[in-house]
């Protein structure tokens, strides 16, 4: 079983025995064989107004191709989840939106990506300005080694904001938005590193929304949290989605089902199926998707 591109992945497993001949997974087999496949994008996606449009996007780490011809529209004001087995390129796609992959040597991209109609990858784009339009929360909580207050207002600080009242106001609004205000309002000047893991992650969310991003990017935000903290963060994502467009990467199917409006299933760098979460989970068009979301495959 030859794979083209050779991105590192743990999904090297053969399909279930006895089905080698007439495979139950023709799409996956085609992907594994390196043949181009057409993504099954549901019509329901086209009904929404896109905030982020990805068109034929490709990404290479040196010689290795990590994303193949990804085309998807992320709807405005909704939560869109990207699911798929480890190494399928979902995090890479997310990090391509705010061009964090630029920091890695030898990364090349192809295709197009539009944020609110403006190109993300164009020579005249200032990466720093682009990142200011997006908020990002990472897999592991990464508060900065400074006070809670300074953590939250960091994006404003780097924009040169110095007025105390503006900062305090933004801090309070943002912490309330991240459902953390009541827990930390009395110790805003304490180090953020003293918070619990769940609190730290909500602090990171507060930091990501303080500058009013056009899209909030969440990269497996709950994978390092315990179940209680996970629940809190998921509730928070629900609330936030009323005000922001959210793109979330998760490998937890239940989480995708719980928090998202739309779900995209990726495999080995390709978009396999994409549609409303209810449709993808209940009436998927592909056997691969059905088996993946039910845990029988992947």
């Amino acid at each position, binding site marked *: 079983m030859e794979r083209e591109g050779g991105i590192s992945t743990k999904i090297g497993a053969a399909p279930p025995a006895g089905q080698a001949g007439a495979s139950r997974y023709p799409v996956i087999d085609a992907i594994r064989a390196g043949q181009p496949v057409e993504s099954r994008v549901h019509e329901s996606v086209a009904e929404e107004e896109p905030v982020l449009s990805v068109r034929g996007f490709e990404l290479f780490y040196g010689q290795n191709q990590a994303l193949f011809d990804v085309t998807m529209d992320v709807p405005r004001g909704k939560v869109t989840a990207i699911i798929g087995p480890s190494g399928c390129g979902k995090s890479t796609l997310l990090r391509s939106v705010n061009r964090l992959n630029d920091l890695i040597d030898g990364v090349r991209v192809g295709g197009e990506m539009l944020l609110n109609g403006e190109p993300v990858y164009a020579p005249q784009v200032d990466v720093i300005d682009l990142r200011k339009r997006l908020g990002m929360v990472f897999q592991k909580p990464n508060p*900065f080694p400074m006070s809670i207050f300074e953590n939250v207002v960091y994006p404003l600080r*780097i924009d040169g904001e110095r007025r105390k009242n503006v900062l305090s106001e933004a801090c309070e609004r943002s912490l309330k938005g991240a459902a953390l205000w009541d827990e930390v309002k009395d110790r805003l000047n304490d180090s953020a590193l003293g918070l619990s893991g769940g609190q730290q992650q909500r602090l990171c969310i507060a930091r990501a929304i303080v500058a009013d991003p056009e899209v909030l990017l969440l990269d497996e935000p709950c994978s390092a949290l315990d179940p209680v903290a996970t629940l809190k963060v998921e509730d928070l994502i629900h609330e936030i989605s009323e005000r922001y467009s959210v793109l979330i990467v998760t490998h937890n199917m239940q989480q995708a089902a719980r928090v998202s409006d739309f779900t995209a299933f990726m495999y080995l760098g390709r978009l396999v199926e994409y549609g409303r979460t209810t449709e993808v989970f209940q009436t998927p068009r592909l056997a691969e998707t059905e088996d993946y979301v039910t845990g029988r495959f992947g």
Partner: protein
Amino acid sequence: MSDHARRKTPASARGESMVWLTGLSLVLAIVMVGLLLGVIGVQGMRTFWPRPIERVTLTTGEVVMGQPYETTTYEPSAADTPPEGLLTAETTGEDGLPLRTLYRVGNRDLGTASFRWVPAWQVETVERPPEAVMVERRTWGVWMGTFEGFEIEGGAIEPASIAEFRRRHAEAIEILEESEALTEGGLGSLNRDIEATRLSIRSAELRASNGDATRGLGIVPWLGAIASAAVGIGLFARAPLGRLRGWLRVTGAVLTLGFGMGAILEHPWSGDAPTAVELAQIQADAAAEIDGFRAEAQELEQRIAELRAEARSERAVFLDGSGARRAPDRDGDPSRALPVAQVVRVVTPNDLGFGGKLQVFLSRWAEFLADKPRESNTEGGVMPVIFGTITLTLLLTIAVVPLGVIAAIYLREYAKQGTLTSLVRIAVNNLAGVPSIVYGVFGLGFFCYGVGGFIDAGPADPMARGGGWWGLLALAAILASAAAGVGLLLGDGPDKSKMRRITAGVLWAAAALLAVYLVIRTPYFGGFFPERLPTPTYGGRGLLWASLTLALLTLPVVIVATEEAISAVPRSMREGSFGCGASKWQTVRRIVLPAAAPGVMTGAILAVARGAGEVAPLMIVGAVKSAPELPVSGDFPFVHPERSFMHLGFHIYDLGFQSPDSEAARPLLWTTTLLLLSIVLVLNLTAIFVRAKLRAKAGGSVV
């Protein structure tokens, strides 16, 4: 019943012997270090504790008076063999050899050594007379003996008590101090005025003969040009400047315009060369001024001489242990008694209780820490030495920490990690292993003679004035703008072209090299202190160059430590910062550096500890046996980093190996070593304290 093969664990695998071995090594190391510190501590503290004075009468009838230091056995030489039967159990050591005792006998002006071995078998009697005194004198070291009284007219002696002596001594010292204050303050400042006036004549003469190649060529337009250039470069840099850019642009334009206009209208580079008539006038004025100063100085000198004579008029008679000889006058003339003002302190150790001894101990420590050295460093205090050491260390820290941190930031954060950076890293690590004396030689050649000589007298081999130099300057400017232009095209994106990066780098390097060449061969700079030549000002050994040399020496330590601290900051934190829309510089400045600060401090501690204890390069670039003037003083410009200085490490070497009387210097040697160790300890503790504060501030740091 089980037929499993039992696996065995051999004794060697348990590693019990290794535990013993490792523990033993640690104990050995601790014992050795503890022994060193213990010996230095005990000996250093003992120096100032008054020892008893013994009067020893020898079988030959000779009387030795002194303080016993140590008792050992010795191998008698042929001339010195004790006669048969004289050796008793009391005068023989455990190894069967005769015993002897080392006495500090002082009285160097009588022509004997300060220390004397007395074989025990020669001793008739030993007593500790309560009236025995140890007199510390301004010259000739200590006097051991007894106090008789004061010398009055005709050489007669007026008997007096020690208490009476102390009273009159205090009076005499007061007068002496007044005269010293006049010498240092009044006379010193007059001498400096005379020197300054003399230099102003020389300066005017130089300007008259050289035209504009002096400092008259105006440092101001040069500073202006540099400022404009800096602002110009600032226009190209984007993110770190932020909203400053507009302001810089306006300021830059105004500055450039202003200095350009000023340069064209005023020709500041043509200097203010005086005409022959003006020169004659300046010379005449200055000569008259100098005459005035001289007259004033003469008056002062007379007054000082009077005070000194008054202070010396009271003379005290001290006899030696045998009571036969008197402590002579300052110049060794035994016919005159010792002037009271010559005495620093009189101690009667046999007559003192614990409290009295403690008082002497403390007063000697105070003198040691607060006074200048006397007697070619073997007596008195080490205040200038402490001052020099601390100033040197501070300057070294100020120089090395920013430089090392900035270099490490570039190496780790900005430079593309590849062969070149690896080579640089290897080179930096190797620099740490270069013997320090090599740095000393380099510092002397580069800093003292090269940079210092340039500051003093301008370039040694300037280019001809005119088109050639200006043409090269224009070329440098073109290269720099070309480099900035190519650099601007680079952008931040993944489409960075290697070719462009290399081109920009080569252009920058060429522009920088050309700029350096233009500076070191500029015909438009004649030095800041040409009038003082051939006496060097900055062109000699001095505090500034010494600290820069040590900064160079300790730079690798700071770079390596900072790099490690920076790379220990987790990637997730940087990505978080970039994700917020922070630029590289903002991320480094606000996230990476604060998180790495404790690690950087560790590097600084190591560097400072190494720098403070270094001696070899200092002997070459600026530490001296005796520097009468501190690098910080009351005369303009108050800070004199070009002066040579005294340093504790060098002082120890000097006391131990360069003293005219190394035996006499030995007690002070221990104390000075103890002091150096204490200063290094205090510096380290301060840094560790600061680091702890930083760690607490970072809230459980990552480094």
